[in-house]
């Protein structure tokens, strides 16, 4: 069980960056808003202790920038918004994610019943088939 948790955790880390950039593509957001929005996406839910440092890291890379904006309900908030460089990064990650997902889906859709191990110990190569849904 611990292995699965570790695996989940590792997967989420990489995806979190993509999701934060994707969220901020639509409009700028402040810390609490970003954290709660990501928490709504249950499988991706990450602690504040992960999201806030990630925001600073993305800012340091120049993918995000910050500005202050007055709040209706209180003191000003620090907002994060995507930079041009951040947009490029988002496009790269989207492309990578698309490729990765397609590749993994193809592997998962592979018909496992068909291949039989030959005398030489090799599994005959078959064209991947999609599962019928």
């Amino acid at each position, binding site marked *: 069980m611990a292995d699965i948790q570790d695996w989940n*955790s590792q997967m989420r880390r990489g995806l979190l960056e993509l999701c934060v950039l994707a*969220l901020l593509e639509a409009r700028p957001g402040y810390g609490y808003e970003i954290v709660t929005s990501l928490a709504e996406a249950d499988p991706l839910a990450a602690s504040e202790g992960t999201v806030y440092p990630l925001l600073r890291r993305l800012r340091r890379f120049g993918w995000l920038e910050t500005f202050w904006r007055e709040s209706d309900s209180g003191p000003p908030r620090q907002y994060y918004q995507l930079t041009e460089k951040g947009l490029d990064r988002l496009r790269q990650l989207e492309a990578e994610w698309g490729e990765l997902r397609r590749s993994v889906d193809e592997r998962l859709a592979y018909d496992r019943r068909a291949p039989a191990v030959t005398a030489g110990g090799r599994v005959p190569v078959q064209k991947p088939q999609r599962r019928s849904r």
Partner: protein
Amino acid sequence: MTSGRTTRSSPERHPLVARYVEQLEGELVRSGIQREEIIEIVADIDGHFADAQSVGRSLSSTLERLGAVRELADAYTVALAVGMGLEGSGSAGRPRTGRDWLRRATEGGRLATLASLTLVIGGLGVALLLTGVVGALAALVLPFVPSRLLDPTLRAGMPQLVVLAVAALSAAVGRLSLRLVKLNLRSLLLGFRRLRRARPDRVATGQTDRDRRLPSEHGSLRPTVHRPAIETWQRR
């Protein structure tokens, strides 16, 4: 786009929140994170408490979600140390001062180079300082030494004022070198501390101990981006 250094700290802040934020600030300072960065981090966390309170979230729940101060500080340290490793790291810009340069050098993992540099500059500094002190003493003492005791080359040597000036210059350069060594040593210590904190598995993933526990709280991961949450965000 980044504007003034405003914090959202409010006078009616709960004592627990004040303590949490103060401790976080202390940890971040000890981690060697730049002051400007710390101000903005603290503003984020301070604002997080204020926003959570404004939507009626309990303080205990907010504290629980944020995790231990030390873990949060470590996560920031790791995240920012990783951030330094990339070329052209945006907002951080180019190092402007010697201190910035040294900090970059340690964060970039060039500790060996910095250690060698420290040794060379330190050796040079000590030599120059000693030369300066000995030269100045000699220049001051020589006029009182009977000329018959002096070597003829010394008697025909440079005038006393020139010797004094050269000695003072040498001592000043030596002292400057030693100050640079002191700065180097501090940066080296910070670098080593960061390396110790940034365990390899954490550097690779930016992962905290807290995240290792999270999956059990939030169920399993499905390999799809959760569109509804993003759509909700875009509609707001």
